């Protein structure tokens, strides 16, 4: 009897240490998302990860976006997390087999709040972040598109509006809504520092043009895409 009491007391103490958001993450998210790292070290290991890594979520996402998206998730990667698992050869090009793409689990608003709080505590290492930061400023959408598409070829893999652009990477017209500006600068500067096996190449964009690209992504994110879809 005494031991049972001790056991219960210990369990309660334990739960107090792990936040409510962390408990939800452990129960409902870790089967698909890595929350303690490190990133996949081989291509095979990468393909086994069912969702994007979240172990540096606090350095990556905008908390406001997270809270909303977790309640009402919508697709970000038009061909899924690993396109090679969702495509088949078609007449003119490889096509996405959309029947293999599953909707993302949704949370209640209060759970989303707790989970966001827990995720925002997971910070990236200094090696991942690097030293580059976003310096602010703005750019016209048409000049931004030249830098993104013509000069650097980024549109090959990314949609810059629904239905226009490449399909293997995440849509970028909402990227600045989802991600912190410093993260965007850092990831474009050195994608392999975040994920050594990412299918995104380092295109060695000049530091000045990376600032312009992030300004462009911010301009894109201002449009109301949900309404336009």
């Amino acid at each position, binding site marked *: 009897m005494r031991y049972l009491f001790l056991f219960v007391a210990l369990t309660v103490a334990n739960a107090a240490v792990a936040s409510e958001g962390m408990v939800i993450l452990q129960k409902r998210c870790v089967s698909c998302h890595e929350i303690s790292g490190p990133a996949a070290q081989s291509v095979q290991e990468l393909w086994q990860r069912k969702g994007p890594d979240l172990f540096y979520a606090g350095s990556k996402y905008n908390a406001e976006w997270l809270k909303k998206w977790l309640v009402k998730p919508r697709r970000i990667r038009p061909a899924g997390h690993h*396109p090679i698992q969702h495509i088949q050869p078609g007449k003119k090009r*490889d096509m*996405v087999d959309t029947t293999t793409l599953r909707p993302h689990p949704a949370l209640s608003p209060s759970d989303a709040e707790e989970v966001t709080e827990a995720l925002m505590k997971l910070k990236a290492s200094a090696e991942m972040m690097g030293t580059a930061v976003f310096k602010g400023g703005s750019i016209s959408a048409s000049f931004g598109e030249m830098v993104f598409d013509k*000069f650097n*070829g980024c549109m090959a893999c990314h949609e810059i509006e629904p239905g226009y652009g*490449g399909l*293997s990477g995440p849509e970028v017209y909402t990227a600045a809504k989802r991600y912190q500006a410093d993260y965007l600068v850092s990831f474009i500067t050195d994608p*392999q520092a975040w994920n050594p096996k990412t299918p995104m*190449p380092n295109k*060695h964009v000049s530091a000045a043009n990376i600032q312009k690209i992030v300004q462009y992504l911010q301009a894109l994110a201002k449009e109301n895409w949900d309404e336009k879809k």
Partner: protein
Amino acid sequence: MRKNKLFLTLFVSLLMLSSAAWSDDAEDNYKNYCWQCHGMTGDGMGLNVQDMSVQPRDHTSAKAMGGRSDADLFKVIKEGGLAIDKSVLMPPWRDSLSDDEIHGLVKYLRKLCQCG
């Protein structure tokens, strides 16, 4: 005894996984990095091509690939299209792949085009 060996192998693989630079085989690399544009069969009709202003090379065509030396192929994979006065749409892969892995891909391309 057998179990011990299995355990040892597992342990060694784990050790190898935990040390950073892991060399992947050419087929996995081709699928992870090149399929997006060059296609699942290597014929240049990948997932991304619809809105691309320059089409990816058909790696299965002996005609399109035969005129290139191994050194040419190595260079374009490592440094990208711009390095050989071709399209910026062909990315440089030197930050994703080691020289050994790029040599592996050159061999793999030779198998695809059955040339050279």
